[in-house]
């Protein structure tokens, strides 16, 4: 492991053991992150991006469980920590997280300061005037006035609240911060300013950041690396500028095309037909094949390997060195492009069951 690597994730699998079966929310995720760099994780809802974040904190909620793989965070093997050790050793100190909808995360009955000092109090035993000084310094770092310390959350605007949450996440000087959809609820102007601040903080404090979002256009501004997720897999991972200029995986290609451009007149927007699969019973072979516009015969049968193309890691048969695979016949089965319903047949056993129940109910009604 290189000296400046902060995080190394290797073949991480996190599954949810539900009564309907094992939900394979995260499968075989591997990536590294260097100090002072940022990675953007993008994908549709339900693709496992939040599960990845919770796994890194060793905070997967039951029935979720890290099944296998390793997470090496600054020399500490996170997967082996008990809950108590994780709280003591890594959370806030090594890695902290800014949650989705951070605006509602603060308790309305306490002042901002009261809530901000908590990590200082419990992790470092710092209280009183000293804690206040530290908090005010961090508030100023995120472009807020120190006097916000004494205000109540309802007195702040959405952008200000988001900044307070970011400042709190930085208090114990972690090596890495995870930001889960940090600006989705904010207006464009405020969003752009917070993104500017995050870029500056990354440089000034030399910390690593992980951005989680479904909106690729935001990630372009802040990430050095990019990981595109689909149905629990990282399907493409590499340098952001390479992926943006030349997306390799058909899924990435479509995600990029779905971003509207304000400069040119267009008649239609690209989109990906169908819905993401149910992960209790994911599609055979490549999990994306029912919605893929480049699907081949082999995609239904065989899980693709990760191929390195031009420095970017792509999990797709199109880039296989084995020619018989790379030049497999075009798919004979119907993908969502021809028939949206075809892609939905992968909804899994549960979907079928409920529909049966429906039939019965209606019969009874009659």
């Amino acid at each position, binding site marked *: 492991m290189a000296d400046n690597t902060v995080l190394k994730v290797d073949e991480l699998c996190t599954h949810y053991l539900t009564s309907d079966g094992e939900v394979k929310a995260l499968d075989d995720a591997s990536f590294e992150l260097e100090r002072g760099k940022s990675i953007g994780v993008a994908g*549709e*809802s339900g693709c496992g991006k939040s599960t990845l974040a919770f796994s890194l904190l060793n905070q997967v909620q039951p029935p979720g469980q890290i099944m296998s793989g390793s997470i090496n965070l600054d020399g500490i093997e996170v997967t082996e920590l008990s809950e108590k050790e994780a709280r003591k050793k890594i959370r806030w100190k090594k890695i902290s997280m800014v949650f989705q909808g951070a605006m509602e995360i603060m308790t309305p009955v306490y002042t901002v300061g009261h809530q901000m000092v908590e990590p200082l109090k419990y992790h470092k035993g710092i209280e009183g005037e000293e804690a206040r000084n530290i908090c005010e310094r961090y508030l100023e770092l995120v472009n807020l006035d120190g006097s916000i310390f004494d205000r109540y959350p309802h007195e702040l*605007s*959405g*952008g200000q609240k988001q900044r307070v949450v970011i400042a709190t996440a930085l208090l114990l000087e972690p090596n890495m911060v995870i930001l889960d959809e940090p600006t989705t609820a904010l*207006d*464009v*102007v*405020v*969003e*752009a*300013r917070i*993104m*500017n601040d995050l*870029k*500056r903080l990354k440089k000034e404090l030399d910390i690593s950041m992980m951005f989680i979002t*479904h*909106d*690729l*256009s*935001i990630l*372009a*501004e802040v*990430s050095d690396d990019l990981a595109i997720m689909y149905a629990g897999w990282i399907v493409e991972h590499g340098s*952001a*500028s390479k992926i*943006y*200029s030349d997306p390799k995986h058909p899924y990435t290609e*479509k*995600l*990029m095309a*779905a*971003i*509207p*451009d*304000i*400069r*040119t*007149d*267009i*008649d*239609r*927007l*690209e*989109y*990906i*037909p169908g*819905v993401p699969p149910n992960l209790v019973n994911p599609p055979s072979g490549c999990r994306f094949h029912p919605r893929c516009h480049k699907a081949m015969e082999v995609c239904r049968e065989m899980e693709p390997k990760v191929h390195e193309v031009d420095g970017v890691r792509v999990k797709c048969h199109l880039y296989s060195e084995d020619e018989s695979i790379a030049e497999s016949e075009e798919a004979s089965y119907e993908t969502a492009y021809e028939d*949206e*319903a075809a892609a939905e047949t992968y909804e899994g056993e549960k979907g079928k069951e*409920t529909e049966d129940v*429906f039939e019965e109910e*209606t019969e009874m009604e009659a």
Partner: protein
Amino acid sequence: MAKPLFRARNLTKHFEVTQGLMQKLRRKERQIVRAVDGIDFDIYWKRNFSIVGESGCGKTTVGKLMMRLLDPTDGKMYMKDKDITELKSREELKAYRRQTQIIYQDPFSALDPRDRIRTILEEPLRIHNLGDTREERTDMVHEALEEVRLTPPEKFLRRYPHMLSGGQKQRVSLARAMILNPDFVVADEPVSMLDVSVRAEVLNLMKDLIDEEDVTYFYITHDISTTRFFTDYIGVMYLGDMVEKGRVSDVLDNPAHPYTQALLVAVPEPDPDRVRGMKQLPISGEIPSGTDVPSGCRFHPRCPHAKDICSEKEPEEREVEDEHTAKCHFAGEIDFDLDVAK
């Protein structure tokens, strides 16, 4: 040019802030929120109109006024030359609302979780006494589902909203609006809760329905990047006033008001090579409260080009080019290049 389908003249809505007993006893002056402050616009048949702005600028209030869900404080609205601000009785309003429908932002809470899709779609038919027999109504529901590409319709009729994905739910909302064959649909942030890929799908569908169903949309959004694709005209709102309006390609290529320029710079750029450094944002601060609208031009405290006149005199609407106006003393004189600004 053809006659407008919908006209708003000096449309105004002021809300009074509720006072507590003590404030009343002390005879404190009543505070007024100027949510919509005298705006004019025309919407033409099958030419979508979008309204953009930050939260709190009054865009949703405009939508509600147009649906007559709120009563305007002042001003007039005309639908096909009929004065709709004069509609008073239940029957008149009911007839008006058959022609105009609304789609809300959050498909997760706009559909009753206890009703099946069939019941949800039949409700507008029941209210407006459409379809004589059950079979007739079933046919109409089928047709509406097919219109929004939820096929085969039989598969969806008996489902509950929680069994659908976000995009499918929003398409059910759309079907519920379309089942009455409205002329006019107010779409209040219809795609902001959806994933980017699904967003495109729903917008494409809504665009197809313009010709298929002869419908015109009033599209309310904070996401300026989708307006170019979806609409023909755009109005930019700031603190209750429409500061710039015109054809969408004119306004976006040649924004005349400094606020529109700032909004355009703030749009995230999906190209890392273009946004290496910090973004130079021309405006600072946040939108002020509607109770305390600044004097003169309401944008002047945040405006990078503000001069003395801006705090003294409210700007008139100035024509920048044909069908493109901006409420700024210096409209047309401020140069703007999106690529240089980044």
